[in-house]
C-alpha cells in the first residue's frame, strides 16, 4: 500500500467518522421534526397554547392539546431551581477557592463532583421517600412544585459550582496580586475583581445548569405529582414537559404521540438556544 494512499484513507475515514458524529444531532432533529409533522399539520401550533386542557387521547377533533400548563410547570420548576442553585453554586465555588483552607477546599470540590455524579433516579427516590413526607406534614399532598425545585436545586448545583470554580481558577494571578497590593479585603477582591473577571464563565455555568434543569426528567417525574395545571403556589402538584413525555410516550398513538414529539422538539429548541447563548458568552469573553 502506497504511503500517500494510506494517508488518504486515514484522513477520509476520520472525516467520515467525524461527519457521522456531527450528523447525529441532525438525525435527532430530523426524526423529531418528521414525527411532529402530523400534529403540527392536523392540530396546528396555535391549539397547543389555546385549547382548554391537555386531554390528547381523544384524537384530533375530540382531544385537547394545551401544552401551556406543562410549559408553565417546566418554567416554574426550572426558574425556582436556577434561582436557588445560582447563589449556592457560586458560594460553593468561592468557598473552595477563596474561603476554605487549602485541603478542605480540595475535599469540598471532590464532594461537589460526587454530588454531580449521583443519578437522577437516586435523587428521585430520596425526594419520594424523605422530602415528600416532610412537605406533606406541612402542606399535603407533598408531591409538589416545591419538592421538584428542591431536588432540582441539589441536582444542578454541582454544574454551577464546578463550572464557576473553573472560571475562577482562570482569573489571572496578576489580578489577585494587584488586588493584594492594593490591600483589598477578601470580599472586596472577590466582588470587585474576581467575579467581574469570571463573569462570562459564570454566565455559561448558569446557562448550562438551566439546560440541565429544563431537560431533567426522572427526578421531577417522581416528586412533582404530575397534575397538568398552572401552579398557583409552590405546594401545588405540577407536571413538567419532560415528565409528560415519560408518562405518556408508552401508550400515545397518532396525534397524541405526534404532540409529544412536538414537545420534544420544543425542548430541543430551548437547549439549542441555551447552548448558543453559552457559546456566544464564552466566545465573547475570549475576544474581550
Amino acid at each position, binding site marked *: 500500500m502506497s504511503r500517500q494512499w494510506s*494517508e488518504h484513507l*486515514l484522513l477520509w*475515514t476520520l472525516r467520515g*467518522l*467525524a*461527519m*457521522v*458524529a456531527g*450528523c447525529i*444531532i441532525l438525525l*435527532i432533529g430530523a*426524526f*423529531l421534526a418528521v414525527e411532529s409533522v402530523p400534529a403540527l399539520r392536523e392540530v396546528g401550533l396555535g391549539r397547543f397554547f389555546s385549547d382548554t386542557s391537555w386531554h390528547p387521547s381523544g384524537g384530533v377533533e375530540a382531544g385537547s392539546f394545551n401544552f401551556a400548563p406543562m410549559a408553565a410547570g417546566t418554567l416554574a420548576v426550572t426558574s425556582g431551581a436556577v434561582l436557588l442553585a445560582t*447563589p*449556592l453554586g457560586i*458560594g*460553593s465555588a*468561592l*468557598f473552595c477557592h*477563596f*474561603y476554605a483552607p487549602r485541603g478542605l477546599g480540595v475535599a469540598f470540590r471532590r*464532594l*461537589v463532583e*460526587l*454530588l454531580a*455524579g449521583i*443519578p*437522577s*433516579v*437516586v*435523587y*428521585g*427516590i*430520596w425526594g419520594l421517600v424523605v422530602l415528600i413526607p416532610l412537605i406533606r406534614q406541612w402542606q399535603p399532598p407533598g408531591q409538589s412544585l416545591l419538592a421538584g425545585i428542591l431536588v432540582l436545586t*441539589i441536582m444542578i*448545583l454541582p454544574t454551577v*459550582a464546578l463550572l464557576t470554580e473553573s472560571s475562577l481558577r482562570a482569573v489571572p494571578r496578576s489580578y489577585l496580586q494587584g488586588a493584594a497590593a*492594593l*490591600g*483589598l*479585603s477578601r*470580599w*472586596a477582591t*472577590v466582588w*470587585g475583581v474576581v467575579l467581574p473577571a469570571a463573569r462570562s464563565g459564570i454566565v455559561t455555568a448558569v446557562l*448550562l445548569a438551566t439546560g440541565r434543569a429544563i*431537560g431533567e*426528567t*426522572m427526578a421531577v417525574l*417522581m416528586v412533582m405529582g404530575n397534575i397538568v395545571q398552572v401552579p398557583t403556589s409552590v405546594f401545588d402538584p405540577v407536571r413538567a414537559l*419532560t415528565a409528560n413525555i*415519560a408518562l405518556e*410516550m*408508552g401508550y400515545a398513538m397518532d396525534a397524541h404521540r405526534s404532540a409529544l*414529539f412536538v414537545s*420534544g422538539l420544543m*425542548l*430541543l429548541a430551548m*437547549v*439549542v438556544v441555551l447552548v448558543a447563548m453559552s457559546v456566544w458568552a464564552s466566545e465573547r469573553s475570549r475576544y474581550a
Partner: protein
Amino acid sequence: MPDPSVSPLPSLSEHRVDWPDRAVASLVWLVALLVTGSLLWIVGDLARHGAPELSWSFLTDSPRDAGRAGGILPVVVSTLMILGICLAVSLPMDVGTAIFLAEFTRTGGLLAHFVRRSLDVLAGVPSIVFGLFGNAFFSIYLGMGFSILSGGLTLACMVLPILIRSTEEGFRSVPDEYRKAAAALGLSQPATLWQILLPVATPGLVVGLILGVGRALAETAALLFTSGYVARMPSSVLDSGRTLSIHIYDLAMNVPGGESNAYTTALVLITLLLMINVLTFWIADRWLHRGITHR
C-alpha cells in the same frame, strides 16, 4: 496602608474590622455546610436504608415478587450488556472524531466547526429527547423493538460528546515535539498516530470513557422506551432488559413495599459510580503529574 483615593471600592476605607467581609465569609461557609449537609443526608439515607439488605446473594439472585424479594443479577447483566453495546459503537467514533478534531483541523475548517458545534448541542440534549428519538428510530423505524440493542445504541449517541471532548483533550495534550520528532523520523501519518500519539493520549481517552460510563449507568429516561424494563435474564441483545437505574425507578414508583430493594439497588449503583469516580481521579492525577521529561 492603602490609599483610599486609588481604590474603586468603598469597603477599602474601613481599616478596622471589615464587617461585610466577615458576613460574606460566614455566608459562604454556611453555603458549604448546606451543600455538604445535603450530600451527607442523601448518601446517609441511602446507606441507612440500603445497607441492611445488601449481601452477596442480592447480587447473584434473580428478582422475585416484582423485585420486592430476591436480587438483581439479570438487571446487572442487562446493564452490562447495554453498556457494552454503547461503548462498542461509541468508542470507534469517539477516537476517529477526536483524532480528526485534534490532529487534522488545527487551524479549523468548516467540517470541524460544524462537528464541534453539533457535539456541543448534542451534549445538551435532554435525555428524554434521546428516549423519544431512540424509540422512533431504533425501536420502531429500524425494527429493533424494546431491546438491549436499541437502548445501547441510544446511549451511544448520548455519551458520544462526553467521550469526544475528553479524548480530544488527550490528543491536544501531546506535546508538539512528539509530532515533529515523528515527522523528522519520516514516520507516516498512520504510524505517527498509532505508535506515538495514541499511547500518549490514552489517559484522556480513558477519562472520557469513565465519564461516559458514569453517565450511561446513571441514565433512566432515555432507556424507558428503548430498552424497556423486563427484569429477566436476557438471552440475546434483542431481548428487553432493564438497567439498575430503571430497576430503582420501577421499585420506587410502582411497587408497594419496593423501597427497601430500591434503596439497596441504588446503593449498588452509587458504589459502582463512586468506584468509577475514584478511578477517574486516579488516572487524571497520574496523567497531570506526569511530566514530559518522564517519558
